[in-house]
């Protein structure tokens, strides 16, 4: 019987003590999960699973992570996530277009860096204002970016429709444009960035973020450079969002217009972290699963169970009602988000079969 107790597992070195997953059972579980994601899923999944479920789920998890670093860890509210996704996508597109022979992964990173710079600029007001007022300033970024990308044709290479299309996804001679290839590409980028985020939030910087989040005056008093900490939060968060935007445009849809990154997308990312859990890495996956998978599930169920019974337009509205009710129920039962539910389950499992 697999037990999750930590008995008999002692840290003999500091490095062991600083590990993210201190139980061997947790590490083994993670390894199995990664093996499933990298080996089993590509063998088993259909195009529908790749293109309609897994890729958007992963990309939105990453966008959620970007916002979670800023809002959940550093305490700075933002409604501009979609704007930074748009900057990432359009910058990556332009690097691809204008620099001959640039590997597309490099342009993803460059796109993320451009988004980071934009993030710092839109984060400047955070040095003076807080909370709801900061939301307004990031909201401004959201509208300005969308307007700029629409207004100036240069950003979309003067495409008459303002739509950008994906560059050929070829890496080291391998064509990744098949659904499985795009899934593996997305998965690899997402895994790498989640690992990075897991390190960041446990570093000095991550602890500074949390100190600023909990009380920035106190943080300043104990010598934390508040200005740098906040701006780094904006930069790193926007970088993550920017890369997510590139993946959204190129690995998921293959084509995107500025309005694909409108305020609704920002809200969607915000809901992911509220439902998933602020200040949690895992919560981004849980929240994205809730926001992406549940409507699909309801729509599939509605399509097959209610077809012919109720008019199609009505089933669609019923799904919206049901989804809204579920959100409310979850938030009442678990205001800290799904991640806290998971923590509770984990704590119970650790002492099983005893009761807490």
């Amino acid at each position, binding site marked *: 019987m697999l037990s999750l107790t930590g008995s008999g597992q002692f840290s003999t070195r500091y490095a062991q003590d600083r590990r993210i997953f201190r139980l061997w059972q947790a590490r083994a579980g993670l390894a199995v999960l990664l093996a499933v994601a990298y080996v089993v899923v590509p063998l088993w999944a259909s*195009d*529908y699973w790749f*293109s*309609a479920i897994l890729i*958007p789920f992963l990309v939105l998890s990453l966008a959620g992570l970007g916002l979670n670093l800023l809002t959940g860890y550093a305490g700075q509210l933002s409604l501009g996530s979609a704007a930074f996704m748009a900057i990432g996508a359009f910058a990556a597109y332009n690097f691809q277009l204008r620099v001959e022979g640039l590997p597309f992964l490099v342009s993803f990173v460059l796109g993320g860096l451009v988004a980071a710079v934009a993030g710092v600029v839109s984060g400047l007001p955070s040095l003076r204002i807080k909370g709801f007022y900061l939301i307004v300033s990031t909201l401004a970024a959201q509208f300005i970016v969308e307007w700029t990308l*629409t207004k100036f044709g240069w950003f979309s290479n003067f495409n*008459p*429709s*303002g*739509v950008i*299309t994906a560059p*050929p996804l070829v890496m080291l001679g391998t064509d990744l444009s098949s659904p499985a290839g795009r899934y593996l590409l997305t998965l690899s980028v997402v895994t790498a960035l989640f690992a990075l985020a897991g390190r960041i939030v446990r570093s000095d910087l991550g602890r500074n973020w949390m100190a600023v989040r909990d009380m920035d005056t106190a943080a300043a008093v104990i010598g934390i450079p508040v200005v740098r900490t906040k701006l780094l939060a904006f930069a790193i968060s926007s970088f993550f969002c920017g890369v997510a935007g590139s993946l959204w445009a190129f690995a*998921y*849809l*293959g*084509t*995107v*217009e500025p*309005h*694909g990154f409108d305020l609704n997308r920002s809200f969607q990312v915000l809901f992911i972290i509220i439902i998933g859990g602020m200040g949690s890495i895992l919560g981004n996956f849980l929240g994205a699963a809730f926001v992406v*998978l549940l409507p*699909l*599930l309801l*729509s*599939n*169920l509605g*399509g*097959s*169970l209610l*077809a012919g019974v109720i*008019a*199609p*337009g009505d089933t*669609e*509205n019923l799904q*919206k009602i049901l989804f809204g009710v579920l959100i409310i129920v979850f938030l009442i*039962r*678990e205001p800290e988000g799904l991640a806290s*539910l998971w923590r*509770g*389950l984990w704590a*119970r499992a650790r002492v099983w079969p005893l009761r807490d």
Partner: protein
Amino acid sequence: MSVSRLSFRRLAGAVSLGLALASGAVHAAGEQYFPLQSYRVGPYAAGGTGFFGGFIDYMQLINTRDGGVNGVKLTWSECETEYVVEKGVECYERLKKGLNGAPAAATNPLSVGIAYATLDRSTADRIPLITINHGRTDSTDGSVFPYVFPLQLNPYSEVSAIVNYVGQREGGFEKLKGKKIVTLYHGSPYGKETIPILDILAKKYGFTVTHIEVPHPGTEQQSQWLNIRRIKPDWVILRGWGVMNPVALKTAAKTGFPVDHVIGNIWSNSEDDAAPAGDVAKGYISITTHPAGTDFPVLKDIEKHVLKAGKGNLQDPKRFGNVYYNLGVVNGILNVEAVRIAQAKFGKRPLTGEEVRWGFEHLNIDNKRLQELGAVGLVQNLKLSCADHEGGGAVRFQQWDGAHWKVISDWVQADRALLRPIIEKSAAAYAKEKGITPRNCAKES
């Protein structure tokens, strides 16, 4: 805590149930499947319910009156897109495999955004992508876009025909010199598609054109129309969609611009666009490829075999025969004809998307065929080929009298000879960017 745990378990149960339902396919071959990426909620529901209502009713007619296409019954299922790109992609992926063993014939998303996003996918999956009266203009060049069909009227032909009509109204093209035209367009790929071609036409005929964007969904247009009043144009071309259209007409009246000098494009031409604006819409002009009305024999047949039998798709029977509905019927006719033509070559059985594609490419709707279909005056003559995936390019103009559309012009042809080189150039650039080798249309049969 225990309740939360339970709900998790329930969720997991629901997930597996849903997946089983989604993938559980009972084999029932012998039918031809149409995946419908429809939209019945959201700001564009009027267009979606009308179009897909007409499309479904026509397929229903073929099944009940004729017993299918040469005995092959048509089947379909819907997936709601709300006109949202991601949802459309999801629906495309969900439906593309066919239904219960019936292969998918063609997709008809009725959304430029979704069409753009599924263009590569359709080509890779070998399923025709039909964008009737809209779509990506350069997909007219079938040598580069073998699977994409902007049937009847692509956006360039559309504005070209409008400019030709304005020329007629002004009394000749030379009179266009110095005139001012404003296009008020929907802030989406669809709305922007015609900006470059209008600039070219403006240069050619010597009028000035100003492009003004209305952000989606277009419920607020005060500043745009104040701007128009400042410009004082001779004509306004309205490239609207959904709720943007009646708002444009109302705001035009409010700011004092005469609506009989507003010309609506093919997606601003329905009863649902003019009627909500009330009396002020009287005199509004728009183009159409498919007049409203219930007098066409094919609509009479639908009424007899489908509506009277209680199988009609429309929730509001009063919308039977309106512009969106009739476009759906036209779309149904063209899809079914493509299947019929392909069956003549490949055999009377359910066909793959690749085979139906051949059928679309060999569509040839002449007056004789229109007579047989009972659609004279509803559908224009259409002849497609490998190089030409549009086929028609003519529109008529109609004017709103406060309750109905009255046709006020004969067919006005777009200047397709002028447009063709621009389309070919754009298609060639796309082929180069994407690494596509164009087909040699001279060798295609």
